[in-house]
């Protein structure tokens, strides 16, 4: 037990040391991220001091960029499952190699999700009220209480799986299947649940016809499975370029297939929704009309959504063409679809539900600079976390960071009565 603990703390120390090593590009990247994170922290401190009046939200449009980013990121987090399913269920060896990088992304992104929810709270000092057992949890009635459970559960599951596998690899021992396989399979269903629950958060509101549509949950899944693996493709290419970890082309091309199919489904489901809204042309079309064409002279979201439409269309075209088998175009297609989906699922899904209000007012929403800074800060912090995770994991995967090769292995136990290894 004591040795295990000591071994583990040596691992943690060596892992931390690993994050302090790197060339100038690594330090430039980390410094940039740290600076943006701090700018965000500063903006959030201002928000704490003056209240949410520092944002562009109002009693009419009561959710904005924070919840929009949250929604998008829940999707990104769940996307790790698109690597896990082929790797573990179908035994795909190529994807098995990179699955842990996807799960690490999930961990970083869930942390971002939790941060985005926290910054949206009017009274973050009362966070204990939402802790099951300590506060007064409205479970199972409130969908938000479900979200608290599924998000934190997903974070714990992925943190456990990644931590356990990486540590085993570091020790050079074979992971005990019982300690991770059940969790991997639970995490598959859990990933679907974080999406579904987050979609139900919106779908369950009868007073907001724009959200009150059964297709929202499937749309969430489809767009997540586009943007998430798309992000992983880009991350893998960065890893391939800047580290000595080999990522096979086959992996990227398999991911391309996933992104391709998801994007087709995503665009199809969007089309279904638009048909329902505009062909029916009932009073409930007002929000969709505001989003796409503007309503009574108000058209704040129109440029956003058409940008998203254009990006998604180009991305879809690229993904369908053989051109995207070349990695340059694949990167472009992924980047375009990530931005397109970020707009469509963020600004495009959250804001119009509030415009017009349930009693017919039109109050537009313009995020403030402070709000943008908080968002940028959380994104930078998330990327910082992911970089740190990769910086630790990749030397372990390539075999450079191993227990045998480090000082920790050779240490004799202090009491001397229980020699290791010799």
């Amino acid at each position, binding site marked *: 037990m004591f040795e295990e603990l000591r071994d583990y703390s040596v691992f943690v120390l060596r892992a931390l040391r690993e994050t*302090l090593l790197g060339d100038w590009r690594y330090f430039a990247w980390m410094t940039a991220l740290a600076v943006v994170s701090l*700018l965000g922290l500063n903006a959030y401190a201002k928000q704490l001091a003056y*209240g949410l009046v520092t944002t562009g939200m109002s009693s009419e449009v009561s959710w904005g960029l924070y919840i929009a980013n949250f929604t998008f990121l829940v999707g990104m987090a769940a996307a790790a499952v698109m690597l896990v399913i082929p790797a573990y269920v179908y035994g795909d060896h190529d994807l098995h190699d990179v699955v842990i990088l996807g799960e690490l992304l999930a961990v970083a992104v869930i942390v971002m999700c939790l941060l985005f929810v926290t910054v949206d709270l*009017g009274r973050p000092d009362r966070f204990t009220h939402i802790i099951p057992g300590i506060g007064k949890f409205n479970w199972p009635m409130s969908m938000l209480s479900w979200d608290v459970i599924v998000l934190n559960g997903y974070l714990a599951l992925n943190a456990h799986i990644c931590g356990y596998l990486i540590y085993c690899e570091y020790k050079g021992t074979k992971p005990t299947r019982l300690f991770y396989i059940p969790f991997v399979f639970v995490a598959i269903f859990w990933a679907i649940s974080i999406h579904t629950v987050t979609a139900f958060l919106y779908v369950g509101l009868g*007073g907001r016809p724009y959200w009150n549509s059964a297709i929202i949950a499937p749309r969430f899944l489809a767009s997540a499975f586009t943007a998430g693996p798309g992000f992983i493709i880009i991350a893998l290419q960065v890893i391939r370029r800047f580290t000595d970890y080999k990522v096979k082309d086959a992996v990227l091309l398999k991911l391309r297939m996933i992104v391709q199919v998801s994007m087709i489904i995503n665009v199809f489901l969007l089309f279904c929704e638009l048909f329902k809204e505009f062909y029916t042309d009932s009073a409930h079309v007002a929000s969709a009309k505001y989003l796409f064409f503007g309503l009574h002279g108000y058209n704040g979201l129109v440029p956003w959504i058409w940008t998203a439409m254009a990006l998604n269309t180009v991305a879809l075209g690229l993904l369908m063409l053989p051109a995207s088998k070349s990695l340059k175009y694949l990167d472009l297609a992924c980047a375009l679809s990530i931005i397109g989906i970020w707009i469509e699922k963020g600004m495009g899904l959250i804001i119009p539900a*509030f415009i017009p209000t349930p009693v*017919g*007012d039109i109050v537009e929403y313009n995020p403030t600079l402070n709000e943008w800074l908080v968002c940028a800060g959380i994104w930078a912090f998330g990327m910082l976390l992911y970089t740190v995770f990769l910086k630790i994991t990749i030397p372990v995967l390539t075999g450079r960071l191993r227990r045998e090769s480090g000082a920790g292995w*050779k240490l004799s136990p202090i009491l001397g009565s229980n020699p290791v290894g010799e």
Partner: protein
Amino acid sequence: MSISDESPPERPELPDSRTVSRSTFLQAGLAALGAVGATAAALEPLKKVDDYPSFEEFFQKHYKELSKEEMAAVLERTRVRVKKKFGVDATVGDPKPIEGVEFAYALNIGRCVGCRKCVYACMKENNQSREPQVQYIRVLKMKKGSINVESSQHLYEDETVPTKDHYYMPVQCHQCRKAPCVKACPVQATWQEPDGIIAIDYDWCIGCRYCMAACPYGARVFNFAEPKIKPEEINTNMSYLGNRPKKKGVVEKCHFCMQRTRKGQYPACVEVCPTGSRKFGNILDPESEISKILETKRVYILKEEVGTLPRFYYYFDV
């Protein structure tokens, strides 16, 4: 053998590992120092936060879990806070629902002229923020020939009311029997009282605003900034679940003036209405005015299709 006796093993991958690590740790130390300094600078605006919760406030229980003594302490704390912030001596009570009473509200859309006297009487009675203005009642200016709120106007600025070809429909919390806001709240900070009022524990609300997204009537408002009220405009007759001044970051809404109605008075909006369009009473009493109106008039329920079963009705005389 002590740990320091061991020499670090050779690391062929990083031949200069020892020198690298020494200078790296020095650099890391400097970087850490810089990071701490930068973080402290980033957190500088926190100096302006003036509503950090006290120890008692942080550990204050949910309204329904407070014992009698704890409730008394909470009320006293609220009184002291009001005194400190506004310099006013207020009485803060916690009037309970009256046995055998269920409140309901009826509004005569045929008579309302859209003068918005109710809006301001409400704000005064309930100690809402004046800067920025927080209002519980929205008076909608409706085009004759339609009862669709989606084509209404709320921020009309006519010199005189009513204007030709329009009628008016005030909207406030409908105190729904199947309230979506109660279902939505993740921390049970809002619930239905036995007399039908949907109450909020303003000291428990975490400000997530999910209830606002859930409300089909746009009845809930949020304190985006610290509420500002002139001390001379404070209504000193306060109740815990009712009209005490709020802190920033919490949601509030109409609560049928419970500090008045639970003592047998009418809500402020009913009292101020110059046209007598607003009616209020106990629907469990078959002889009450409200029961008679619901029985004999043509009654309309706003957004009946969302199925929230409001305790707020609109009616027509003719």
